[in-house]
Structures are given as structure tokens and as C-alpha cells.
């Protein structure tokens, strides 16, 4: 079992108990704080001898003096057969207020330590603490892995809402929770008597009466040598028992003193196990250190948050996952299918392929490419590979090439790539795989084929070719798996003439608020932010087109900017909509691109309709974070999208500065990268001070922008690549 599975299953199962322990722990953590506020400020007394004598003077019936973890001194005694307990002033032994033990309900502590189930419950709590420790450690491993190493641990966090919350809070609370659970384990071990704290049997000592009166406390050497700060408890000899002794407990150990001679009759050092226990108690409960108790309390209160966000993350992953039915064990399968896919859409194709082969009587095993391995029973291997970014492997399969290189049992193999021809690195990773396999001498089952835009027809053709190679008919009828869609109603549109037959329009749809119940069942449109994507399925097709959102759910509407492409099915459909018309749509989060309440200055660079998500960022810039927009168009009269809004946002100071470049008008300023170069000193200044960058537009435009910014960054010894690695630079390209 990997770290991830360990973390997930322990978290889901032990999580509910951990929530109980976390919440009761947070409640119990208030005790040291209350004690610290209630305890009268304690003045100094140099030695325990001095303290005892002062208290005895003020309270003749005193039997026991304790120094509480808060530092306050409490004296216990009897007056007229009634037990008494008072805070005392160590400066003069004066009785102050009545001492009340913890005001917290007793069940809180019992629930925390034993789940109200006695000894069995103590084992349950200890088990939960152990689970918590393992969850913390596995969480740290996953955190380091996710952030890309120890050095990036404090870097920006990407992901969906629950993921971000889980990681952001986890980064802070993890060490505290880990310490809490480890100390809890030690404390449990002592309670369950797996570790013994005893120094040995107590000495059998008595005071030997020799006709002398009691020595006063001030003349007892052991008490004179004991500092008040080290005192835990002092028991005074009982008036009616002539053989009774003084007993003093300190951090260092325990001593017994003859009441007549003042001699130290015995001394036992606290064993190391006891000292360790004392430390564990301080670290676990925060007693004697109330600021630490506050931190512990907050960490305890964060446990439900981890559990709930963890559940949501697991639930979302489960919903998104494509499940493969009757997956044969890898050692028995004749056909192995390996999948490399960042978003998960390729898994749908894998399932269709798996089912069709299984239908033909094959034993098929499908797994992620990171599990690449052949067995004696393996007759053929099929790899379905999508590409991530600029031709890289999807994250989960980043070590796949090394794994493949180590495999010695070589069987016929075919690679099927997935991608989009618009991208220069079309099927880049699939090509790399194919090349590596050819060079390593794997027999070719089928030549490399690349599927464009998840085309079902192309996939079916490849299936025919595969069937021929296998000598059997193979029909691959792939129906793309789409998330459930919601009906959106157009409420307004604003048209821009654009150029030639490519007009653009800004469409605004009403956001139907989704009830909590529907949201939990995964229905309706979830919360979204500017920069997320809306998937629109034109009638009569099954392939969605994605548009960047120029609004967030806080705005109460969904807004997109669409340019009509000649022959473009979806853009033509959208341009034909009138207010009141409806579309079917769903949201796809784009967590790497959206802005999350950053306080750093933001540089927004967009060309054409690419300005849409940037406009969304500015619209919701209620905090007035410095935002600088670089907009590239052709003609301010024809394609300056959001022009009136942008001017208003400038006045409202939502936008700090606007820089435009129009390529088709005289003195228009050229392209957007020219505007960047003109403004190089200011940009360099902003970037030197940690500004973050968002670029949206076409791919050639993005390359031009990156080249211009690299020139600007060079004197700072920085590059766009470095900013990307730090999460400061993100692109949304089409």
C-alpha cells in the first residue's frame, strides 16, 4: 500500500474518532488558559522551606502545598474537620481565593482519553493517536511530493477548494498534530502500564521521636535547597501521627524528611521515564504554558476540517474516476492496457477498449502507466497516453520511461496518443514513448496513432486496425463520459464587430443557485471563480467546448467572450443565441490559473477574447490589489472587449493601470508583447517585488509574451520558466 492509500484509508476510517479527540482536545486546551487567568499572580519565594513556613503561619491546619503547572501555589488543609483549599500568596503565605479544580465537565476528559468506554476505550484512543501519527507522517510525505520537494514546501498551493484548504491548514497544523499524537502514545503507554513510571518501592521511613519538638520548615536542609519553581507537592507531617514525615515531590524526584531531626531520610530520583512523561504532559496538554495550549487547541479544532475536506477530496476523486469492471489480475492477463492521463478523460477510452477486448474473451488488466510491468502471461501491451503541458508526461506517469527501460520481458506493444492538433506538442509524450520503445527493441503491434480532440471515429478506426492485428473483429464504440450538465439561461449579450466574418460577443448567463442537497449529490453548477472553465455541449454533439469564465459565482452570473470561427460548430451555435435561450453546460475547475485572494501585485496579459478571465479577476478585485492589464487587440473600435467595464474599473481603482496595443491601426502600438517591452522598467520592478503573472490568449501570442518577459527578467537573473515553477506564472491558452 502506498502512502496515498495509507493516508486516505486511515484518514477516512480513524478520522471520525480523531474528530472526537480533536474537538475534546480543543475543549480541554482551554483549561490551562483558564487556570492561567484565574490563578492569582504569584510573587517570589526563594525556597520551599521559606514558602512552607509562611503558609504554616497563615494557615495552621495546612497538610499539603502544591505548585500548579500555572505557577500558582495552592495550600490544602483542614479547619474544623472541613477540607479547605486556597490559593496562597508565596510572599507572605496569605490565603487568597478558594481554589477550584478545573471547571470543565469531567466527561470531556473521559471522552478524550477513553471515549467513555473504560480500558477498552483507552486502547481505542491510543489506536487513534497511532493512526493520527501515521496520518501526519504520510501527510508530510504527500505534502512534500505535491509541493515538489522540501524547498517548495512553503510555495503556493494549487487545486480545488477542499484540496487547497486541506494542504494550507495541513502545512501549519501537521507538526503540532504529529507531536500531539506521539506524546499521546507515550501517555497512553504509561496508563496502559506498558511503560512504568515507578522509581521503585517507596522507602519505609518514619520520624524517630527523641523527645525533641518538631523542627520548623526553615531548618530542614532539603527544603532549603529546593527551589519553589521545582516544587510539585509538599506534604506536611500530620499533627496526630508522631512518626509521620515530610514528603517533598519535585521535578527531580521525591524526598522524605524526619520531622524532629530534619534529616533527609530517603531520596529517590525521578526515573527517566517519569521525566519523559512530565515533558509529554506539558507538550500534550499545554499545562504550565498557556500560549502553547492555545496552539494545541487550534490544532485540535482543525481535525474536523481535515476530515471533512479529506472526505470531499476522496468523494470528488471517486466521482471523477472511471471504474474498470472485471479487471483481471496483471499476472493472469494476456492483454495489459496502461493509461497516462492528466485530466482523466483518456480513462474513458481505456474502459471502452478494455470492455471490447474482454467481450472477445481476452483477460485484460488496465492500470496507470506508473504501474508498467509485463508478466509471463502477457501477450501484448497497449498504452493510451495523453500529453501534459509542452509534451511532458502526465504527473502520475513521470517516471514511466525509466520503468519501461528496466522491463526485460518484451512483448508486442502499441501506443495510442491523445491530444489536440492546435498544440505544437501534439501527442508529444506518446511520441516520446513510441521512440523509446522502438529504440529498446520492443516489437511493434501497431504503428503510433494520435487521436485528435477525443475523436470517437478515429478511435473506432484504430480499433479496427487493432482487430486486424489480433485477427478478430473489434468494435470500439466510445461514448465520451460527460459530467452532468445544467441548463443555463442567457440574460444579456454584447456584440463586437471584430474583423471579416469573425465577430465576437460577450454572453451573460444566469447562475442558478444550487441547494446544498443538490450540491452534495453532485448536481447543479458548483461554485466557480473567474478563470475556471465552462464546458458547453452544442446540441447534437457529444464533445464539449471549453470557454474561460469572465465571472465568478460571487457575481451571480456566468460570463464568457466568444469569437465566431468560420465553420466553428459551437461558436456559431452560441452566436445564434438570444436572451431567454438556454444552453447545457458544466464547470471544469482550472485551479492553476484562478487567483485566490493574493496580496501581491498582479500582471494580467491578454489578447483578443483572452481578456475574458482577466476581466473577471479585475471585476472581483474588491481588495484593490494592484493589478496591471496589458491588452492586445487589432482595432479599439472593433475588438476592445470589456472596454467600458475596464474604464470603469480603472476609475474604481480595481485596475491600477491599463496598457493597450492595437496592431491594425496606425500608431496602435503593435502587439501586446510590444506593450510589455515599452513598459519594461515598471514590469521589472513589479516582478522583482514578487508580482504574479496571468497570460490568456492564443499560443503564438503566449510564446511572444514569454520571450518578451524573459528579456525583461534577464537582469533579475530570473526566467519565465522559474516563475512557472514557483507558481507565479500561469497561462490559459486556446
Amino acid at each position, binding site marked *: 500500500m502506498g502512502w496515498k492509500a495509507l493516508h486516505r484509508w486511515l484518514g477516512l476510517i480513524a478520522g471520525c474518532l480523531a474528530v472526537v479527540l480533536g474537538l475534546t482536545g480543543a475543549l480541554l486546551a482551554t483549561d490551562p488558559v483558564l487556570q492561567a487567568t484565574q490563578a492569582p499572580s504569584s510573587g517570589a519565594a526563594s525556597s520551599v522551606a521559606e514558602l512552607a513556613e509562611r503558609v504554616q503561619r497563615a494557615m495552621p491546619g495546612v497538610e*499539603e502545598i502544591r505548585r500548579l503547572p500555572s505557577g500558582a501555589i495552592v495550600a*490544602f488543609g*483542614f479547619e474544623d*474537620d472541613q*477540607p479547605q*483549599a486556597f490559593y496562597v500568596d508565596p510572599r507572605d503565605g496569605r490565603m487568597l481565593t478558594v481554589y477550584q*479544580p*478545573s471547571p470543565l465537565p*469531567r466527561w470531556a476528559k*473521559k471522552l478524550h482519553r477513553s471515549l467513555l468506554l473504560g480500558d477498552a476505550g483507552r486502547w481505542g484512543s491510543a489506536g487513534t493517536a497511532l493512526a493520527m501519527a501515521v496520518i501526519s507522517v504520510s501527510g508530510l510525505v504527500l505534502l512534500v511530493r505535491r509541493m515538489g520537494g522540501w524547498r517548495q514546501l512553503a510555495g503556493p498551493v494549487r487545486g480545488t477548494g477542499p484540496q487547497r484548504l486541506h494542504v494550507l491548514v495541513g502545512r501549519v497544523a501537521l507538526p503540532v498534530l504529529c507531536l500531539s499524537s506521539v506524546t499521546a502514545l507515550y501517555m497512553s503507554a*504509561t*496508563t496502559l*502500564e506498558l511503560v*512504568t*513510571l*515507578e522509581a521503585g*518501592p*517507596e*522507602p*519505609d*521511613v518514619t520520624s524517630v521521636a527523641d523527645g525533641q519538638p518538631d523542627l520548623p520548615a526553615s531548618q530542614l536542609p532539603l527544603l532549603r535547597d529546593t527551589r519553589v519553581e521545582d516544587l510539585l507537592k509538599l*506534604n506536611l507531617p*500530620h499533627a496526630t*501521627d508522631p*512518626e509521620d514525615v515530610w*514528603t517533598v515531590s519535585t521535578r527531580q524526584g521525591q524526598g522524605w524528611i524526619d520531622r524532629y531531626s530534619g534529616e533527609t531520610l530517603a531520596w529517590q530520583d525521578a526515573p527517566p521515564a517519569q521525566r519523559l512523561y512530565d515533558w509529554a504532559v506539558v507538550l500534550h496538554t499545554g499545562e504550565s504554558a498557556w500560549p502553547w495550549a492555545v496552539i494545541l487547541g487550534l490544532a485540535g479544532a482543525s481535525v474536523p476540517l481535515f476530515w471533512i475536506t479529506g472526505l470531499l477530496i476522496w468523494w470528488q476523486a471517486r466521482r471523477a474516476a472511471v471504474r474498470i469492471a472485471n479487471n483481471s489480475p496483471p499476472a493472469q492477463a494476456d492483454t495489459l492496457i496502461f493509461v497516462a492521463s492528466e485530466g482523466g478523460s483518456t480513462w474513458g477510452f481505456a474502459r471502452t477498449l478494455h470492455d471490447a477486448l474482454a467481450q472477445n474473451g481476452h483477460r485484460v488488466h488496465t492500470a496507470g502507466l506508473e504501474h508498467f510491468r509485463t508478466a509471463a502471461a502477457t501477450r501484448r501491451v497497449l498504452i493510451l497516453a495523453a500529453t501534459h503541458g509542452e509534451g511532458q508526461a502526465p504527473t502520475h506517469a513521470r517516471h514511466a520511461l525509466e520503468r519501461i527501460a528496466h522491463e526485460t520481458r518484451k512483448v508486442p506493444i502499441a501506443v495510442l496518443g491523445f491530444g489536440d492538433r492546435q498544440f505544437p506538442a501534439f501527442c508529444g509524450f506518446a511520441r516520446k514513448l513510441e521512440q523509446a520503445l522502438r529504440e529498446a527493441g520492443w516489437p511493434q503491434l501497431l504503428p503510433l496513432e494520435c487521436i485528435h480532440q477525443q475523436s470517437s471515429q478515429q478511435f473506432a478506426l484504430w480499433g479496427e486496425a487493432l482487430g486486424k492485428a489480433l485477427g478478430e473483429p473489434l468494435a470500439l464504440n466510445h461514448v465520451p463520459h460527460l459530467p452532468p450538465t445544467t441548463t443555463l439561461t442567457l440574460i444579456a449579450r454584447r456584440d463586437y464587430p471584430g474583423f471579416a466574418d469573425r465577430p465576437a460577443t460577450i454572453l451573460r448567463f444566469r447562475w442558478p443557485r444550487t441547494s446544498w442537497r443538490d450540491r452534495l449529490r453532485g448536481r447543479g453548477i458548483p461554485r466557480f471563480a473567474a478563470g475556471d472553465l465552462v464546458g458547453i455541449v452544442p446540441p447534437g454533439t457529444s464533445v464539449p467546448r471549453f470557454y474561460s469564465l469572465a465571472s465568478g459565482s460571487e457575481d451571480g452570473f456566468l460570463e464568457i467572450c466568444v469569437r465566431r470561427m468560420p465553420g466553428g460548430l459551437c461558436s456559431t451555435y452560441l452566436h445564434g443565441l438570444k436572451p431567454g435561450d438556454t444552453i447545457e453546460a458544466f464547470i471544469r475547475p482550472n485551479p492553476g490559473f484562478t487567483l485566490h485572494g493574493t496580496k501581491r501585485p498582479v500582471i494580467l496579459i491578454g489578447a483578443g477574447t483572452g481578456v475574458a478571465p482577466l476581466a473577471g479577476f479585475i471585476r472581483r478585485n474588491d481588495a484593490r490589489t494592484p493589478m496591471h492589464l496589458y491588452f492586445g487587440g487589432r482595432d479599439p473600435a472593433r475588438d476592445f472587449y470589456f472596454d467600458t467595464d475596464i474604464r470603469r474599473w480603472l476609475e474604481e481603482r480595481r485596475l491600477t493601470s491599463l496598457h493597450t496595443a492595437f496592431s491594425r491601426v496606425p500608431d496602435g502600438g503593435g502587439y501586446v508583447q510590444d506593450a510589455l517591452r515599452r513598459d519594461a522598467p515598471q514590469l521589472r520592478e513589479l516582478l522583482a517585488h514578487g508580482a504574479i503573472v496571468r497570460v490568456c490568449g492564443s499560443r503564438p501570442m503566449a510564446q511572444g509574451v514569454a520571450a518578451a518577459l524573459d528579456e525583461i527578467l534577464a537582469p533579475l537573473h530570473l526566467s519565465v520558466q522559474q516563475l512557472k515553477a514557483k507558481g507565479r506564472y500561469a497561462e490559459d491558452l486556446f
Partner: protein
Amino acid sequence: MSRILTTVATACALAVPAVAHSRPVTMNVQLKDYDGDGAYLAVYLTDAQGAYVRTLWVAGGKAKYYKHLSDWNRLSARDTERLAGVTGASVGAGRTLKVTADLADALIDAGYELRVDAAVEDMRDSPSDVRVPLTRQEAGKPHSGKRYVQSLTFEIE
């Protein structure tokens, strides 16, 4: 409502050399209705000089807390058999512990004392919460304790 839970404990072993004549002694230790968890109790016997003779009953199962029954723990430290067959659960506030022990005739009316140490978690220890001479004269009378023990009553058959 009666809040009496009766724990019957029969301790048959004798610490003193076998004596032909012994009789059962029944002790009822009733606790006060204090606000706290169940009490650890040690019921034991000391001689005229205050030296430990025998443990009659220990209520409370965790050895790590026995040091809080401090008089008993100190006095009985050398008795390796002190827990043999005489331990049970801790006793809740307001409840009664009933202990029966066979005691030699020689122990009665001979200066011996019954003692009870009590301790409650997170509260003060109460060594020798109650001390009663083991005499026929004191039998049948309730003897009040210092802190947790409401009364100790014993009967000699």
C-alpha cells in the same frame, strides 16, 4: 434512590501464622457524594505501633495510581503478597464498598487498627482517610472519615 452498590470481597488468606480461631469481619465503607471520578481505596490493618499487618482490600485496578494511596503504599511496600486476591474495581462517589475478611481472634481488642487510604483522580490524596481501632466496642458504630469516606462501619461475628 439508594445509591448503594455492594461489592462483596472475601479475603480468606491470613497473613499471621495460622491461628485456630478466626472469625469473619465485615466492613462497609460508604463514600461521600463528592464531585469526582471513582475512588481508589486501600483497606488495611496496622498494629498497636502503627506497623503494617495485612491488606484487606484494594479498590482500583491500575498499579500506577497506587502511590496515591500513600500510607498504605509506603507501609505495605515490602509485602509482596499485598495484592493477592484482594483487588477490585474503584468505587464511585456515594457508593459503598463491602469487604469481608477472616481475622484471627488475636487481632481483636489487641490495639490493632483498621485504616482506609483513599485517592481520586485529579483530586487530593487522602491517606488514612479513616482509622478505627479493631475492638468489639467500636463495632457496629459508624466512624466518619476525613475526606472521601462518609463512614466506616464494621461488624464482628
